[in-house]
């Protein structure tokens, strides 16, 4: 094998490394598949954002779902994060990262919306301070 690292003797794969039996052609095909899927999802995102054909309140949710799908495509086809046993450590680290990201974003948006909702309108605060 020409990769300079011994995949046969190791249980794990470095993140970004690919476990394929095929040659260069297969690997390029993998990147081409990822590129095609990413283009499809990006184009859908831009189309959905600018169209009147979809029920308007559903658009932000649709955009977020499309973005998460595209992140998955990038992780699988470009970063080669798979569900295989040689990738367990990488997936676990990713899962922890995703947990923290969700906590930070979800928590901030939730708490700030709640504060906004409970705050007195600005003009009333000004009146009380007089």
């Amino acid at each position, binding site marked *: 094998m*020409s990769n300079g690292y011994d995949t046969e*003797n190791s249980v794990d794969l470095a993140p970004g490394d690919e476990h394929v039996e095929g040659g260069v052609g297969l690997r390029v095909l993998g*990147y081409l598949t990822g590129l095609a899927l990413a283009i499809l999802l*990006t184009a859908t995102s831009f189309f959905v*954002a600018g169209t009147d054909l979809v029920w308007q309140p559903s658009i932000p949710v649709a955009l*977020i779902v499309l*973005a998460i799908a595209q992140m998955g495509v990038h992780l699988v086809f470009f970063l080669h994060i798979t569900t295989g046993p040689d990738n367990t450590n990488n997936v676990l680290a990713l899962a922890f990262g995703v947990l923290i990201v969700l906590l*930070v974003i979800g928590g901030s948006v939730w708490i700030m919306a709640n504060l906004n909702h409970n705050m007195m309108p600005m003009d009333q605060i000004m009146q009380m301070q007089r």
Partner: protein
Amino acid sequence: MVDATIAYPHSDPHHLRGMEASGIAHSGPASKRIATGYGFWIFILSDMVMFSAFFATYAVLLGQTAGGPSGRELFDLRNVAIETAFLLASSFTCGLASIAADTRSTIWFQLGMAVTCIFGLGFLTIEGREFASLVARGAGPTRSAFLSAFFTLVGCHGLHVSAGILWLLTMMAQVFAKGFRPDILRRILCFALFWHALDIIWIAVFTVVYLIGSAA
């Protein structure tokens, strides 16, 4: 390739190859490539945690325009589409360059990295012009909390891309000067991880900042 059983006579006494995943075989410490790549993967994830704080800030401050212009008036989605295409194409060519590095093909590696660099510079040029035009229209980062959050988040991503391009040029020079040594190959692995991760963050940027931000 050296046969593993010849190099380490006792590493596989029962010929359990193919059964490593069962947990029966005990391999030694992970190779340097795995340790380096895994460490860099942890760094990338912590970088994403930092970006998540900027995204949370932007989401919270999206409506706080202080009477100034909102995203709908400011953002030019055609520019954003071009930027997205550039970054996606550069991610693809970066992948081709890492295949070339694995097959020790210097020409294809340098070509792939050069194309990646050109797409990255194109991305930075469009982003720089966008920022300049916003500031010229009086919509700089000091105008409102919304614009402060916008410039911090998108500018931070732009800084990462700039650092990535410097790293890319360094890798081209190192492969040119030193060839595909194992340590250089580890750096190429880390660079590819970094560059693909930047594209993943850009997905979140164009979705949350531009597409949702110009609808709000």
